């Protein structure tokens, strides 16, 4: 395996299927579009959210959706299309009930993202930028999704599925296909891509309280600091430079003087009013994290 057999030329973007006139947009949807418009000083700002809403209703950026958005915003449909084709999250073809994204940017690719993509493609019998014939899954090869400390990362309906392995990826697909509840590692239970799109459009699904506060890697620094008794208050108290400075580790010969200057600053006295409750964070591991 080269890990790199796939081509990358915007297969999922490009022109839209203007012949498919099917739509589920109704008066209620249009009322919601107007609600989005009202949130902005300039109505055109609502274009992005409106297209997310169109996707949640139609499963893609539909031709009628484009026309309605254009009419509501007083801009030509071509400009709506120009917008929709610029951003990767807008689907010009129907997406699956569940939309799977596998990160294959450098770090995730190296840590196994390429193998994961191979695995998911085989499992689903489709390539990236395609949808399974039964409409259950669509697959995308995504770029860095800001979860590198959980690499390799898979996104399911834009929820984080952290620290993936081929086994876990196969299990994810089996469970979703069987309709079993799947909880994102840092997020809510997966219901479907359209539900996610509705939240992205700007409508709450009331599920912000699901999932942990953070994943284990997010808390590593905090936990380490708690173990060592390092707090925002203890650091101020530590200035000026420690008495054993000459014996300090020979770590940074070049920058040492600089650091010393900073530390020796007379202002560095402990501030009595600094709030004490920033102390010892409850360094408890997030629940629902990887076993």
């Amino acid at each position: 395996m080269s890990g790199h057999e796939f081509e990358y030329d915007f297969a999922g973007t490009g022109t839209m299927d203007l012949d498919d006139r099917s739509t589920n947009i109704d008066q209620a949807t249009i009322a919601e579009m107007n609600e989005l418009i009202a949130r902005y000083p300039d109505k055109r700002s609502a274009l992005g959210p409106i297209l997310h809403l169109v996707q949640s209703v139609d499963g893609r950026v539909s031709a009628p959706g484009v026309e309605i958005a254009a009419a509501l915003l007083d801009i030509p449909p071509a400009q709506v299309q120009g917008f929709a084709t610029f951003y990767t999250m807008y689907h010009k073809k129907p997406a699956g009930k569940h939309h799977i994204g596998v990160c294959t940017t450098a770090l995730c690719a190296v840590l196994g993202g390429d193998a994961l993509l191979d695995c998911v493609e085989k499992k689903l019998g489709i390539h990236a930028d395609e949808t399974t014939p039964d409409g259950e899954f669509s697959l995308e090869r995504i770029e860095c999704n800001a979860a590198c400390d959980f690499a390799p990362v898979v996104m399911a309906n834009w929820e984080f599925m952290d620290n993936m392995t081929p086994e876990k990826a196969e299990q994810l697909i089996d469970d979703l296909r069987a309709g079993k509840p799947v909880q994102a590692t840092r997020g809510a239970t997966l219901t479907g891509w359209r539900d996610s799109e509705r939240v992205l459009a700007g409508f709450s699904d009331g599920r912000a309280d699901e999932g942990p506060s953070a994943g284990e890697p997010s808390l590593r620094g905090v936990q380490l600091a708690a173990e060592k008794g390092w707090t925002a208050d203890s650091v101020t108290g530590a200035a000026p430079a420690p008495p054993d400075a000459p014996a300090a580790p020979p770590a940074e010969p070049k920058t040492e003087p600089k650091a010393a200057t900073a530390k020796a600053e007379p202002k560095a006295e402990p501030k009595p009013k600094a709030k004490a409750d920033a102390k010892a964070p409850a360094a408890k591991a997030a629940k629902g994290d990887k076993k």
Partner: protein
Amino acid sequence: MSDKQVLVPVLTANWGQDQSWKLAQYERTGGYRALKTALKRTPEDVLTEVKDSQLRGRGGAGFPTGTKWSFVPKDLNPKYLVVNGDESEPGTCKDMPLLMASPHTLVEGVIISSYAIGVAKAFSYIRGEALHPIRRVRAAVEEAYQAGYLGKNILGSGYDLDIVVHAGAGAYICGEETALLNSLEGRRGQPRLRPPFPAVAGLYALPTVINNVESIATVPAIITRGKDWFLSLGTEKSKGVTIYSLSGHVKRPGQYEAPLSVTFRELFDLAGGIRDGHHLKFFTAGGSSTGILTEEAIDVTMDYESLLKVGSQLGTKAMQIFDETTSVVRTCLRWVEFYKHESCGKCTPCREGTWWLVQLLKRFEAGQAQEGDLEKLLSVADEINGVSFCPLAAGAVTCVTTAVKHFRSEFEAGYNTPAWELLPYERSTAWATPAVEGAAK
């Protein structure tokens, strides 16, 4: 023994608490106290405090935050504050956990900052591919309205503010501030020519301040603890604390908050060093756009100035760390493919040049580079550097030039040997172990 304090949890301090994202919990640990303090002071006073703290932008460029605020004309209204939560520079993963674990830190920061700048409407632009952080921020904004921290006459101060949470739709370039403004205006996310700068003509051509999530989230701590506390941390020109993200082949990847005087080695050691049986090959200091460094730079101080001296940048403080199993050619190709994919297409050198770099790098990866390809690669990189509206292409160029500088022989091997033969890819995966090399398929 005499454990030097390396980490200073400020923004991250409450992340592990039960229901840390809820208002009640946030208030229990001192949340919104900074806002109350700020509202008792004049906006000018708050702005001066932040300016004097020497807080610098945490989103990559490192421009002084308070100075940016002071560029906004006082008497031109309305004006806007836009929070840049489009975190997508490869390796960067600090803002999303912050938004997820403590969205109120951002909300409080937005209110204080808006008050200081004189803004009545703020926008929080968050990348669309991060559903749960968006949920949490929306819920936090709702809670803040109900508690009287947002809306009309905030806490009886007479100050009004609204926040709109806006989800992006997938485009790295929208992390560039003028592209973000275009995106927020309902246009394709392509950077604008400057001047005029956003401080004068930004969103809807009105005065606008754009700050990274972490920069804004740092403001409450500065107000509560005071600028002197902030100034006591860091180096001469890089003050305060910041969140460092370590990822890749280290034993304990994650988020580590430390003063800007911390060294790479200190962070690397806290992260447990490289996984067992392997050793460090190369790393980025501040995301892929800052290029790669090798072991010889391991003692570099992770501040804005020191990294420039070693040919890198602090960037987003995103350290992607790779061991000796990793192919530099492959990694470089994947980064450059990223820039090619994310090029907005506005400037020809970037749009075409990143495409050409990918073609050349693919030949190196496949062991099919032709005579002169290495020179051509460097030549294309040179041609497209610094000739576009924004620094996206420069990020790709830095990847290429630093990779060739440090690992030229690996590129030369690409004239004959595929990268996956030189360094079998399965050995780099998270599930590979030294004992069972090649077992994972």
